[in-house]
């Protein structure tokens, strides 16, 4: 690994074709040796031409954060690479990308190849033998000035993918490929091998990843989406800006973690006795939760499993057990829980329920409800009487319509609220997983 630059403009350059373990080892070694050089701050890691899996990115992030005071805010790769990985259907994988998916021997045996980066400006013919320090490789830049471009949402229709293990000899093709500027080829084969073994739920994990405030945009999540041709609820492309978490948000993470150990906070300092009398843990509602989990393994459980802990409400780990509250939530009370919340009573105006999962109110929901608070837009809010002035699922907010209040006789009945086409829709409840094509928009 080589270090160049100084001040806020430091570049670490790593051989692009080195196997991932060597990369990790090299990064670690360099950080340990130069620990005194780093101060606290948030950085962007440029993965260059290298497409890496989510676990690998997480590993890099953890090492960087552990060994230095740096916080990895985001990963960055040039948009051209992203587009190419999406759109190109050529079956030959570029050599460096074989490293991740297949044997390490292949990598060791690969001849040095000239590579070009679209933005490096060096024509491939001049490169001759590959020189590591010209590669984009992996560059943890300190305090990168441009925080990265907005990455386009992957288009939903994907081409047919070839066999996971391609029989085409990769090396023979390389010279031809090297001649072209736009060289990057989709790492389909290696990707497919990984993505098909990854849980199917990664697909939905990819979509909320872009909604979350501290999302890691990695080509891996994109690749997973490719493995799933139909994206379910995602119907139109969205461009989401990448937002870096501020120190305030990280502090809130810690605060909410400490508060929500109990799972409930009231508007004033509630005495412990009253808090416990309101909380019912696990057993009576395990059935409810399991029924939910079993039935929707592909969507709900998957979404829960694939969202990394960093993106939950306040940074808490998603709880598998639902929170059951059997008393009315009074005005001024706030329930914050990293899981599903079931309330066997009313939620009065002025109360707030903030849950990472679904919110089910066996009564009237007249207070504020925020389901999918960790970014899960598959979450729903179901109430026997949905009269909330404002409901929120994931990042989408719906305000109550100005319709006249119904009298007791012709109330709408059990209602489900969900996200469709980036708006909140409410519809009479037909079942948690029934298809909801109708419904009225909840938009003030």
């Amino acid at each position, binding site marked *: 690994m080589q270090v160049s630059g100084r001040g806020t403009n430091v570049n670490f350059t790593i051989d692009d074709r080195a196997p991932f373990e060597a990369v990790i080892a090299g990064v670690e070694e360099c950080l340990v040796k130069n620990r005194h050089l780093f101060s606290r701050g948030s950085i962007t890691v440029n993965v260059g031409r290298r497409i890496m899996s989510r676990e690998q990115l997480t590993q890099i992030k953890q090492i960087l954060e552990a060994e230095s005071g740096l916080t990895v805010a985001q990963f960055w790769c040039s948009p051209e690479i992203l587009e190419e990985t999406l759109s190109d259907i050529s079956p030959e994988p570029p050599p460096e990308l074989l490293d991740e998916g297949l044997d390490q021997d292949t990598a060791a045996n690969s001849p040095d190849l000239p590579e070009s980066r679209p933005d490096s400006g060096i024509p491939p013919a001049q490169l001759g033998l590959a020189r590591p320090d010209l590669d984009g490789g992996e560059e943890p830049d300190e305090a990168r000035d441009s925080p990265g471009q907005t990455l386009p949402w992957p288009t939903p229709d994907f081409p047919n993918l070839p066999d996971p293990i391609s029989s085409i000899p990769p090396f023979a093709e390389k010279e031809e490929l090297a001649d072209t500027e736009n060289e990057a080829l989709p790492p389909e084969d290696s990707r497919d091998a990984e993505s098909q073994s990854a849980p199917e739920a990664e697909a939905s994990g990819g979509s909320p990843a872009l909604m979350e405030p501290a999302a890691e945009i990695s080509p891996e999540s994109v690749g997973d989406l490719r493995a799933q041709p139909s994206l379910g609820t995602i119907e139109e492309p969205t461009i989401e800006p990448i937002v870096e978490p501020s120190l305030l948000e990280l502090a809130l993470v810690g605060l909410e973690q400490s508060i929500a150990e109990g799972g409930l906070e009231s508007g004033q300092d509630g005495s412990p006795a009253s808090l416990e009398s309101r909380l019912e843990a696990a057993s009576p509602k395990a059935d409810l939760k399991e029924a939910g989990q079993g039935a929707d393994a592909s969507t709900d459980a998957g979404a829960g499993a694939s969202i990394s802990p960093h993106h939950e409400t306040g940074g808490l780990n998603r709880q598998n057990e639902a929170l059951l509250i059997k008393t009315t939530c*009074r005005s001024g009370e706030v329930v914050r829980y990293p899981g599903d919340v079931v309330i066997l009573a009313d939620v009065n105006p002025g109360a707030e329920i903030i849950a990472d999962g679904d919110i089910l109110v066996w009564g009237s929901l007249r207070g504020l409800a925020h389901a999918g608070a960790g970014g899960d837009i598959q979450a729903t809010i179901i109430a026997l009487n949905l009269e909330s002035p404002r409901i929120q699922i994931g990042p989408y907010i719906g305000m109550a319509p100005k319709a006249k209040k119904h009298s007791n006789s012709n109330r709408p009945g059990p209602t489900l609220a969900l996200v469709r086409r980036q708006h909140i829709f409410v519809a009479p409840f037909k079942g948690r997983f029934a298809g909801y094509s109708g419904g009225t928009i909840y938009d003030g």
Partner: protein
Amino acid sequence: MTGKTIVITSGKGGVGKTTATANIGTGLAMRGHNVVVIDTDIGLRNLDVVMGLENRIVYDLVDIIEGRCKLHQGMIRDKHKFDLYLIPAAQTRDKNCVDPDQMRDLCRKLEEEFDYVIVDCPAGIEQGFKNAIAGARDAILITTPEVAAIRDADRVIGLLEAAELHRPKLIINRVITSMVKRGDMMDKDDIVELLGVDVLGMVPADDRLITATNQGIPVIHDAKAPSGAAFSRIVARIDGEEVLMPDLEPKTGILDKVREIMGIRRDAYTHA
């Protein structure tokens, strides 16, 4: 004998806490109990005016708590000579000069002598509220059938439950039956559905109550006032009697029927 401390609270201001305190205290004394009523609205004292005792104040609650006078020196006996005493609030201080602990000690001391200690809570949910509920064993919530008052009452119920004052009872004040019948005002079932607490009683809106308050006589003394009658029923229920809740419809005479046919509206308040 150990008495019972009941706090009368509402959250929202102006719904009738002080009036209810005066009337309930008087009613319980009329039934033969030893009662003391305490005004904790320091700085904005009103209970003495409603009971007609404002010219007799020498010492007040803050003097008792701070030790400048003995407990009995600060208590004013009621005009009508029942076993009813008032501890007024201080007018020149504010609510921060009393602690919840001090209030609790005071209530415990009073419970040794009196059957009922009725605490009049100020509006709001801050220090005054915390002081008032500190010594209480039971709570009575006053509300009017208006959305704003219900919202505040809901908040207060949550705070009371957090302070271990479970299952407060509700008094719905200023009910206008004609509006309820027209559907312009919430009825008892709507309110109970929203708040989820038991109703202790409903008090109709009454001209005579306003007159009585201005004269410094609790309206429960007035035999002809429907609100007075309602307070009597409420007091009976507090005392353990089972009293049915009557319909608050005003009696209609022949003139009213004529008015109804001709479409002339009566005025909103009930007559005796």
